[in-house]
């Protein structure tokens, strides 16, 4: 985990965007890459260096679904709940994964910070419905069983690394 008060990379990102407040969204995206979420300290610093109120930065960060204000797990599972996936029962996959990982909508990240479970409105891979994205990698034509298998595979791999 990045030191929350070490802004070296944030400084570089700001410089790359010329300290231009119009680039706020791109800056937040890049900063989120560094920390995997948007810490309050970093947002305050961004506000300071762009010369805009921190409330505005927070307003933007909390508006867009891609920004996260809480640390996320190392594997982010995004279940597509677009029309095509919904019609093909994506909710069953969601329920199966939730149950398997012991998560809820209020509590989307596992305590070991390994998994975060989210739903997205549409990934545009409707031909592969129902679909699930694990850290930007799309898996399609899933069933609750095959989705669980994907997650189990990660869990096994992680367990092996730790052992």
């Amino acid at each position, binding site marked *: 985990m990045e030191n929350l008060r070490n802004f070296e990379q944030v400084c570089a990102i700001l410089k790359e965007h010329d300290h231009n407040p119009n680039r706020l969204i791109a800056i937040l995206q890049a900063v989120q890459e560094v920390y995997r979420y948007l810490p309050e300290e970093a947002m305050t610093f961004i506000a300071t260096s762009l010369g805009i109120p921190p409330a505005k930065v927070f307003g*933007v960060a909390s508006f867009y679904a891609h920004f996260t204000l809480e640390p996320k797990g190392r594997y982010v599972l995004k279940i597509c709940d677009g029309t095509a996936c919904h019609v093909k029962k994506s909710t069953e996959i969601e329920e199966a994964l939730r149950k398997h990982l012991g998560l809820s909508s209020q509590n989307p990240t596992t305590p070991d910070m390994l998994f975060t479970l989210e739903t997205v409105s549409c990934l545009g891979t409707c031909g592969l419905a129902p679909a699930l994205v694990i850290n930007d990698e799309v898996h399609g034509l899933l069933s609750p069983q095959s989705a669980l298998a994907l997650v189990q595979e990660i869990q096994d791999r992680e367990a092996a690394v730790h052992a």
Partner: protein
Amino acid sequence: MLETMTLETLKSDHDRCAELVHKRIIVCAGTGCTANGSMAVHDEFVRQLEAHGQKALVVLDKPEPGYQVSGSGCQGFCQMGPLVSILPEGLMYCKVRQQDVAEIVRESVLGENCVERLAYKCPDSGCTCKHMDDIPFYHRQSRFVLRMCGFLDPEDLAEYIAQGGYFAARKAATESTPEQICATVLESGLRGRGGGGFPAGRKWEMARIQDSPKKYIVCNGDEGDPGAFMDRSVMEGNPHSVLEGMILAALGIGADEGYIYVRAEYPLAVARMKRAVRDATEAGILGESLFGTGRRMTMTVIEGAGAFVCGEETALLSSIEGNRGMPTPKPPFPAQKGLFDCPTIINNVETLATVPLIFRLGAEGFRAIGIPSSPGTKTFALTGHVANTGLIEVPMGTTLRHIIEDIAGGVTDDHGALCGTDFKAVQIGGPSGGCLVQEHLELPLDFDSLKKAGAMVGSGGLVVMNRSTCMVEIARFFMQFTQNESCGKCVPCREGTRQMLALLNDIVEGRATLETLSLLEEVAEMVQIGSLCALGKTAPNPVLSTLRYFREEYLAHVVDKRCPAGKCAALRTFSIDEEKCIGCGLCRRKCPVGAIEGSPKKPHRIDGEKCIRCGACLDSCKFAAISA
């Protein structure tokens, strides 16, 4: 830069390389096929060719003989992916896995045979389709905007130019006045593909006549409708066509700067568009001197951050400016006062990708396609209960029947088996659209006919639904989507969609009365007339159109507390068919609340009082004896 390297030399260099290619292997590299492992297939082709001592050409940058292995954009038939085509024969293979590659190389690349087991098999006729054009899904379409997506290497600028790309833009830059450019688009009758179908030429003209030293062109690639992915495919498959359309638009209105706003859920589209901008800039097409004319033209790719409402043009502009994506009232229209308060036109990806084709064909030629009030073609994302799902393109005015029966191969049941009579409805245009039913099968799909039928083209999502679909639940699903995506600015949309969702929940969960229904209709009407932006104004459409065509289904939920499709869990009553039940006792053991009784080998019974309608018994029965 173009003083020394003209489009012609780029084209002839490419042609010289292409002439030496023995055969070309195209592996679909769209998001769907990539997810199914097409990149591994691609790499395997290179390895296999090299193992056979053949030269595998991944990039065509110098003239040398060999076999070209390239990726392409989305070919539309995602469910059959990864797709592989072999040119010049035009063979097409479906669901190709890495271990199939050796055989394909041996038989079809080095040899002249078809690997039949990998060819498409028509589910109804059972015949094998060796070539892409034999597959009904393809040959019943008219691929115009998508044509190139299938075999162009989206990361190869030279190939786009070799196919005649950028010539129209250069001609416009060097020979045409803005008036002429706008006139051509106006004459072509092109209507915006993003939703309402506003004439593109009129929009351009409005921006053109603004007196401002700075103007912008914005490409709206924030395709957010659940169930739509046309724009994604165009950006992934033919990014330069979008750029060329933007250049033409910029020339038409006098802009020198453009933004391409791409939805963040589309990382591949972002990467391809960025690559295209970089390549075009390096080649001197874009940059400080557009085609060497000395005029500046820059394009920037902006990645969205996850807000459906940014598909609305004023919200999109707010987002580019680094703000919350909240729509602003019109007037002023973006064409008058848009990005950074300068005149701006915003067109969606498909519209812009159509523009270069208009300039190649001429306005007249373009008008010959489609119908007079809606010329050209339209791409649709076809999903749901049909045999073939994917991305299709048909002339405007094509009937729904043609799409569902001929291209999509007919309606299927929940398990994917064809069942000819099961068609119930089509949801068109996503959460802002409406549904079409049996009586609309002969309806020509174009902007005006759909509007009359209470639906809209919207972004072009087409979700086909069979009889097992509960239309109230579908309306609730879309309402949940818009409610979740409402920006929260105006009262009717923020509060109205929230209340509509609550009312719909009451209906599907059996708490509703007839007053619920009339209140739902009243709120829907007010949200429609009162909302600030298109998201809110169209949010009630799914409710209103399902109420219009499936009112009896609503009434069944409200009055009889019954879901005719058996989908609404709270309204299901489970019963066991004594004829079919063999008394195996599985359901009794599965029931979490002990609501099922019965002795072994005797028909069981469900106690309606105890039943919590979880459906565990239904799923467990191996004899289809339980119904809901």
